[in-house]
């Protein structure tokens, strides 16, 4: 349990003057969202959200606008107060913190990146990056050292003394990322950081972010409305709809086994080539033999390990007329992927 960094348990957020009453009614009667609005004039922002994020994980929360994802991420550092539920960060109950403890936690444990950068226009890039350290009261020399270092991490050497307005959108967001990293936080909260950028720059920043997170291993809560982005970056993905979490799983689980029609709609256009692996689509060796007969000779078949993705299997398959034999731990044969299975797998069917 020690390596669970973020822990949410039954978190609710209801907006409105009568949020308290509405919450009680929801708990007692299980009202639907529309009923809450009708009876209390209150809007349900977050409904009964629970999940854990492990150390070093990039946990993506994906949802369309209005699904409550940006509201949810602001609960972690209590920029928004929950109506009910438990939020723990690094084992500490966030709700029990006093004002000053909360500020200390925000300054030391959490770095946040915003959709619209939210840089301070009157400060140089260096001073923007150093802002969290300045709040913590670090001396100026140290602030400069750290900001120099984090700026070089995001590839912005030489821009320290510029002002944000002189930088392009992509560069500004890299400053935002550097600022979030400057205080060396345990947790990164990223609220649609790349959504406002054009697709090419977005792709570049995603790659840079992935490289950076391999290096730094920051536990990250990443908010996005773009499933492609969630799949590229996420260790696990939570899909939100109307303030509720519909499904949590690895990108492969989400794509191959969508929990409901809503998720299925999202994933149907996603390419499975890099997401689905041999062990998911293979037929176990025993059942293959049972169906095709013991005599079926697999000696001429190529071998591929079970963690090969479909892209790799296609490469193998076009070189041979035989089915591919999948090998498990220790090089033992565990299953078979025929051409039919491979094609169905690419389609996403079973």
């Amino acid at each position, binding site marked *: 349990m020690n390596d669970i960094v973020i822990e949410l348990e039954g978190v609710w957020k209801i907006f409105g003057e009568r949020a308290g009453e509405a919450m009680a009614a929801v708990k007692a009667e299980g009202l639907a969202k529309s009923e809450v609005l009708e009876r209390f004039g209150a809007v349900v922002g977050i409904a009964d959200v629970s999940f854990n994020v492990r150390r070093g994980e990039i946990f993506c929360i994906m949802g369309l606008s209005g699904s409550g994802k940006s509201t949810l991420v602001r609960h972690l*550092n209590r*920029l928004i107060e929950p109506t009910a539920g438990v939020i723990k960060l690094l084992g500490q109950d966030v709700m029990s913190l006093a004002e000053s403890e*909360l*500020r*200390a*936690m*925000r*300054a*030391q444990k*959490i770095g*946040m990146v*915003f959709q*619209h950068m*939210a*840089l*301070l*226009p*009157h400060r140089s890039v260096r001073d923007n990056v150093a*802002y*969290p350290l*300045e*709040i*913590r009261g670090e001396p100026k020399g140290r602030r400069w050292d750290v900001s120099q270092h984090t700026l070089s991490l995001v590839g912005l050497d030489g821009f320290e003394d510029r*002002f944000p307005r002189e930088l392009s959108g992509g560069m500004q967001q890299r400053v935002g990322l550097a*600022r979030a990293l400057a*205080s060396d936080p345990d947790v990164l*909260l990223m609220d649609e950081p790349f959504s406002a950028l054009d697709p090419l720059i977005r792709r570049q920043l995603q790659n840079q972010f992935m490289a950076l997170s391999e290096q730094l291993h920051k536990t990250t809560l990443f908010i996005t409305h773009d499933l492609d982005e969630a799949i590229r970056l996420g260790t696990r993905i939570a899909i939100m709809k109307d303030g509720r979490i519909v499904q949590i799983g690895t990108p492969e689980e989400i794509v191959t086994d969508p929990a409901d029609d809503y998720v299925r709609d999202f994933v149907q256009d996603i390419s499975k080539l890099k997401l689905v692996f041999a062990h998911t689509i293979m037929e176990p060796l025993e059942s293959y033999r049972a169906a095709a007969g013991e005599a079926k000779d697999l000696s001429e078949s190529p071998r591929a390990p079970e963690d090969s993705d479909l892209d790799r299997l296609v490469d193998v398959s076009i070189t041979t007329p035989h089915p591919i034999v999948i090998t498990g731990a220790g090089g033992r044969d565990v299953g078979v992927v025929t051409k039919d299975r491979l094609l169905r797998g690419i389609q996403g069917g079973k």
Partner: protein
Amino acid sequence: MTGARAPQATEAAPRIDLGPSITEFAGRQAPFYVSRFRLLLSARKRTWTLNRAALLFGPLWAAARGLWGFFWLFAILELFALVQVGRGLWGDLGAPKRAEAERLQAKSDQIAADAEAALSRGESGAAALRESAANLARAAENAFLEAGAAAAGATTLLIVGLVLLVLFRLLEGLRADRVYERQYSRWRSDRRVPSGFSFSRLAAGLALAAIMFPATLYRFTVSQPAEWLRTVPISRTYHTGAANLLDRWFDRAAEAGAGVFDGITAGTEAVLDTIEAVLAGAPWPVIVLFLLLAAWRLAGVRVAIFTGAALAYIGLLGFWEKSMLTLALVGSAAVFCVLIGIPVGIWCARSRRAYAVARPVLDLMQTMPAFVYLIPIIAFFGTGKVPGILATIIFSLPPVIRLTALGLTQVPASVVEAARAFGATRWQLLRGVELPLATPAIMTGVNQTILMCLSMVVIASLIGAKGLGQEVLIALQYVAKGQGILAGLAILCCAMILDRIVQGHFKRPDDGA
């Protein structure tokens, strides 16, 4: 929209059937309005339709249909036309002139009688008296003629009134459908817009008309309407009572708060005296050099040249000392304005309630004529420099407060949120984020305040503040045009030096960097 050929795609667009919704909207006479609205909606050119209900019933139709703007506009126009008709029919148009003529005639008769008496007594002035009696008689005759002419104008008035009335009604009939159609469009997006035909609205319209029409007609057409209709029934005693009450209140407050007021006076005076000692006491070359350098370094060469010219004007025309006194007065008033205004502005930006309270007070401070609060200031602080400054502060404080509050509320919420997310305290947020981002707005406020302070110097001199204002005041008293204009220009020079330096300083960071 116009007659040009529409592209194929829009030609092919199926027509939507508005019938049911127009029926729901119109209620009574629905089929009529359905066809009328269709006609208006499909017309390419301006189409005139005549609504007979509106033509016949005018404003009452509008009231029943809930078109209150239409109702008021045409009710007033029709009332105007009716008043003309009424005056033409029953009005005694010659009455004022006839009264004058009668008065003149009476006077003439009297003087003529005096002349006869004088003549019979054989006095020498009789001829002159008879002459003036004849003059008056002629004047009276002229007045009678004019009265006759005015009375003859009654027919014209009657005709004009009737023509106007018919024109207005016709206009109502022609506009009605179009106006009602617009109401329908609004009603489609906002169901609170009145719709249908309502008897209660008709009754309200009737009641309004029943109050307005007879009373107004009576007032304008009868030559001697009853007294109660002409004068507002308010007694003079309220006014005196309230004024006396305020008088007593001020007296008591001045007595009770004497210590406080003396303290304020002493504090203000200390600041003023210091600034005055520096400005008036320092040798003029030092001040000139300082101002020129400040203008150059803070605002650039052009402002420095302008400052030099303005200072030369002040110095060569002998306004130096007075200008320094004025600058000291304005400077200390501005310092107080900033010291009070910025914190109050911050408070107003923080607390909605504080701003709700402050707003009417600020409006009052800005719009109340200065002379009105000069009176209580004199009551509390006497005359001299300090009350002059206080009056200046009252007038000039609002822009700093307003613009500080405005600047702070306009700081982007996302930036504030980011600062909070990194653990900033409220003070760090204010100092490091909000105030810097609000600086342009705050400086605009400070600038306005300085200029408003300068515009107050003449009024402040009324209660004994010395300086250029006094010069203008003296010129005013002796109608010395030249002197007044010269002193006025000196005030302008002071104002522009301060304005250009302060403004120039805060504009520069954007150009540079």
